[in-house]
């Protein structure tokens, strides 16, 4: 049973040592919403995810990271990155259940099979990662993320290495399978942000702000629909103006 995702608020400035990385930020992540953090490379988008994940041990946050229930995010968050991070010595089924395997917990094989079926990899349970295509490997990473059953999902440009068709398929699959969770998705692809987001947080070298989506329909928005293309165009213009 999935726990209700908490609303998360990250406000402040991020530093590594004395070097300014990004901010001041005022990032509000509502419960069960897909938030895209959009911006050019090198503005600190991934660092924000690492701060949320609690893995940015070298980053200092001059500000606060809080949740509405005032509980820690530890154990409620999981991450899917640009690289799939599959373990080459484990097969697809073992990689999917890697979290449980790592913690020494009992593996629910039925759940593993069910999730791999949902991502379209039921035929590949016993295969090793190197025998799969890049798109298939990202599906395994998505299955692994889903099996962790965490309410908050951090996505760090997970579709950027895929070809156009696989990217669209993975985006639609993720939008459908991650519904009901809070998703924080770092990307520099305006089409992706326009397709998937409930809200968009724009970061440039000079400033960062929430972008109102106005009357845009809820995500996932249809590819090629005039409102999606118009949002895409607006995002592109904003990025060009700001950089």
């Amino acid at each position, binding site marked *: 049973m999935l726990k209700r995702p908490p609303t998360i608020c990250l406000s402040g400035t991020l530093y590594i040592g004395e070097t300014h990385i990004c901010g001041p930020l005022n990032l509000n992540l509502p419960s069960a919403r897909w938030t895209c953090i959009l911006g050019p490379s090198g503005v600190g988008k991934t660092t924000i995810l690492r701060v949320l994940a609690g893995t940015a041990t070298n980053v200092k946050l001059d500000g606060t990271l809080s949740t509405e229930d005032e509980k820690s995010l530890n154990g409620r968050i999981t*991450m899917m990155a640009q690289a799939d991070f599959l373990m080459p010595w484990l097969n697809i089924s073992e990689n999917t259940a890697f*979290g449980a395997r790592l913690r020494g917990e009992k593996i629910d094989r039925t759940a593993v099979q069910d999730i791999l079926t949902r991502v379209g990899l039921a035929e590949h349970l016993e295969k090793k990662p190197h025998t799969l295509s890049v798109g298939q490997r990202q599906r395994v990473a998505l299955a692994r993320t889903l099996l962790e059953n965490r309410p908050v999902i951090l996505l760090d440009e997970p579709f950027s290495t895929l070809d156009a068709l696989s990217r669209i398929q993975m985006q639609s699959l993720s939008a459908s399978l991650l519904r009901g969770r809070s998703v924080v998705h770092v990307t520099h692809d305006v089409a992706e942000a326009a397709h998937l987001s409930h809200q968009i947080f724009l970061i440039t070298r000079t400033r960062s702000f929430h972008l109102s989506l106005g009357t845009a329909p809820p995500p996932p928005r249809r590819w090629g629909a005039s409102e999606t293309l118009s949002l895409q165009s607006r995002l592109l213009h904003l990025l060009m103006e700001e950089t």
Partner: protein
Amino acid sequence: MRAAVPLLLLIWYIVPILTGTPPFILPGPDRVLQALWTHHRLLADHLLITIIEILAGLFLASILGWCSAILLASSRTACRFFQPLFLFSQIIPFFALAPILTLWLGYGLSSKIAMTVIIIYFPITSTLFDALIKTPEGWLELAHTMGASRMQILYRIRIPNALPGFASGLRLAAVYAPMGAIIGEWVGASHGLGYLMLLANGQAQTDLMFATVIILAALTLSLHTVVTIISRRFLDHIKD
């Protein structure tokens, strides 16, 4: 390689004839082959002892290497304290240690095994330590978000990821291990190829000495090949 070996044998055969070098200084390949055949039982007996020393040394050095590399990779304090000592230990000339080891451990197998361990411990530990600390950062961050402890990360990620590094160290060790056993046998032994070399040298049986060297070279090559094949099969198995 195939052309080079017969050519070298031919040169080796011709040089003593042309220069008139007596067989007790440089025996020709025919004499060495004859010595290999005549003394094959003697060579086999001593070879067996050297093989036991080498295999025992490889086994013990691997265990010690794993323990040391894991200790150094898991604790920054241990790394800061032991790594300089570990590097300093490599400055000591190993040959000088052989008499001390014989004094402490006697003329039996122990001192030769200890010498082998001392020689191959560093390459095994060093390559393994490098492999353990070079775990991709993304895997560690993933494990962190999954709530894994340091021990779980070590056991489930760092160690499996370091196995190719261990295989490299072991391949290197397979080349150096016979050297360790032979040094030990030179200093004080009653069996083994190193002892047989000294014996043959003392009795001016240069052909037997050359035969022993050939057996030793073949042993080193075979050991390296066997370790390479086993490690490749094992690594292929975990990858495929």
